[in-house]
């Protein structure tokens, strides 16, 4: 029975199926009353950690999320998928706007050390900001090796083999534990949380703490200037023949 322990970071984002609306004052997107759920890549990360636990390679899976009170729903989903306990690093809504990858990375780094975990799983990026930075920054702060865009993960004793999806194809690397792994799309297909597990999850513990308790400073040096919708795509024009196509392209000055 392995003694490895895993920490999985999950983020609560606007549900990917929702149509995004920009606020009239261009300060951000509308989040009030909009459906939120767990970031899809974070779900994949949770699934991988739970599978390792089921294979008895990992002893405990802890789910963590940073943000306002509603984050607890997301942690509960992770618990319903099989995580053992949760940690909610509470950040009031007003301050949560300035929570970026660097701030979250600082929190995760401190937590990883405090909880003495061997593995830190994250989704490769969040679908709201598309930053793809948190995992990498956390690894940097901890001075841990990292396997990002993982499409396959194999534990080998005190090492972990990670197959990474990169533009040129697949790269396989071997990392010494403890290490950071970020999940890509093809790593696994997350399970449905079954009813018995959803009921059990209600009884699992979620520890609430403040960033100050970890000694982390959340000030951000980045401020959002404006958020705008992309320009409307104009309708295309259909032409009948290649001659027409060439003529049209010449007309609009493209050739």
């Amino acid at each position, binding site marked *: 029975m392995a003694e490895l322990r895993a920490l999985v970071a999950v983020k609560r984002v606007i*549900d*990917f*199926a*929702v*149509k*995004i609306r920009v606020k009239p004052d261009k300060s951000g997107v509308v989040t009030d*009353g909009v*459906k939120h*759920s*767990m970031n*899809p*890549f974070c779900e994949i990360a949770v699934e991988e950690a739970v599978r390792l636990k089921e294979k008895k390679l990992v002893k405990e899976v802890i789910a963590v999320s940073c943000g306002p009170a509603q984050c607890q729903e997301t942690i509960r*989903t992770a618990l*319903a998928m099989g995580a053992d306990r949760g940690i909610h690093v509470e950040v009031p809504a007003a301050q949560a706007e300035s929570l970026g990858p660097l701030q979250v990375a600082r929190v995760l780094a401190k937590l990883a050390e405090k909880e003495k975990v061997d593995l830190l799983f994250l989704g490769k*990026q969040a*679908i*709201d900001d*598309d930053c793809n930075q948190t995992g990498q920054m956390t690894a940097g702060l901890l001075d841990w090796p990292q396997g990002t865009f993982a499409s396959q993960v194999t534990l080998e004793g005190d090492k972990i083999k990670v197959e990474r999806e990169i533009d040129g194809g697949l790269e396989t690397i071997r990392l010494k534990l403890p290490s950071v792994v970020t999940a*890509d*799309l*093809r790593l696994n*297909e997350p399970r*449905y*949380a*079954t*009813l*018995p597990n*959803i*009921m059990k999850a209600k009884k699992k513990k979620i520890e609430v703490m403040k960033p100050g308790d970890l000694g982390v400073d959340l000030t951000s040096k980045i401020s959002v200037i404006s958020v705008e919708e992309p320009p409307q795509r104009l309708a295309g024009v259909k032409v009948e023949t290649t001659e027409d196509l060439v003529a049209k392209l010449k007309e609009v000055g493209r050739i």
Partner: protein
Amino acid sequence: MVFHLVPRCSARLFWASSGWRRTYIQGASVGLKYLGCPRDTYSPLACRGYSSVSGSPEVMLTPERYPVQRLPFSTVSEEDLAAFERIIPGRVITDPEQLEACNVDWLRSVRGCSKVLLRPQTTEEVSQILRHCHKRNLAVNPQGGNTGMVGGSVPVFDEIILSTALMNQVISFHDVSGILVCQAGCVLEELSQYLQERDFIMPLDLGAKGSCHIGGNVATNAGGLRFLRYGSLRGTVLGLEVVLADGTILNCLTSLRKDNTGYDLKQLFIGSEGTLGIITAVSILCPPRPKAVNVAFLGCPGFAEVLQTFSTCKGMLGEILSAFEFMDAECMQLVGQHLHLTNPVQESPFYVLVETSGSSAGHDTEKLTSVLEQVLNSGLVSDGTIATDQRKVQMLWALRERITEALSRDGYVFKYDISLPVERLYDLVIDLRTRVGPRAKHVVGYGHLGDGNLHLNVTAEAFSQELLSALEPYVYAWTAEQRGSVSAEHGLGFKKKNVLGYSKPPVAVKMMQQLKALLDPKGILNPYKTLPTQA
């Protein structure tokens, strides 16, 4: 006006678009993983110029399979074509390849041999066309999305196909009252997307939403998945514009909730299946979009438990219950085998899909979780799952909505749509399994349990008269004995026109025939369908 979800992450996030529903309903062999060109073997949209795929087995001409004689209507002449061309220039189609798909129904069970497809854009054009056809005694087959299940949407012989495909404009939408006025050829899914942007939804929803037209829905009084919550089109349709057999335009397109001035004529046309008039515009009341939608998928150990789960849900969920569907283990096996959809819960004899819609996410989730706790602890449900995000909601619904598609891929489908007292809903399936034995590949039951509506389907390698004789009239007689309906929501069309006697007394049938004679004395509107041929 197609809504494409903006992919906010790697383009490889292939679960994305709601467009998969459109492509699957076109009968294309796409799973959730592929978004792309529909291979339109069965595509009703092939009428729009997609050529049909060679290699698909030919469908037998209806008059060769069923005993039906052509009535003495005129045949289309060059002068007729010229007249149509004057009314709708450029939209008179006689190309056999384009007509191919419009002559065959979605189930590929009936085929006509029409030589003319007309595509008007306005009510006035429909009126002029019908005036001409009435004068010349030419038969007309109104056609919407061609997704009907009883062969009512395609010609039996050479009736002229009058398609509503180009009558797809929204006329008006009032966002305080929620009243939508639109032409009959608007596709249901597109109307849903139009309304969604304005925080409303259509009062009906069905698996064929990507292709069916609202005019067809009204003409067949379609039921669907939201019937439990929002009721029948007979309640939600406020007004209609109809063109009668002789070209007269009947404009009852009011947008009033209450109007008791005289007989309610629109009720005649709702569900008349194109035999009393052609619906050209609809005024419909749309409910506000629920802020919180939750879907749970449950496994039950037996049908008795399914019924008890239903009672429990009705009692504890109350006003937020918006759908209650059931399916049996064979249905799950078929969607797994043909469409590669995964079962989200452990294998059970029955599965139930429960949907709640409400205005408060917290309130609804609390109610739903307490119901589920209750049914789980009392053993009514052996396993279940709740959708945690939109993608899971769509995947759970797909398990129920795509059963029809999976059945089509299993072979030839004998389809029955029955209303029964809810306690006896599954007994017919069990009875039939024993009766047909190994002659059928699968005998499955699923449907709108909340409405007492069973969809009973029997699949076989190919059509077989022997199997048909074992099924009919046994199924109808069984239903009549329970005082049920032999066609709960699919209508009569061509395939069931002779069996309405099992659910309606002779006096009623006679009165229907009298009304038909009154409104369409020449009988040119959708002949050979809906009512039994008079003796």
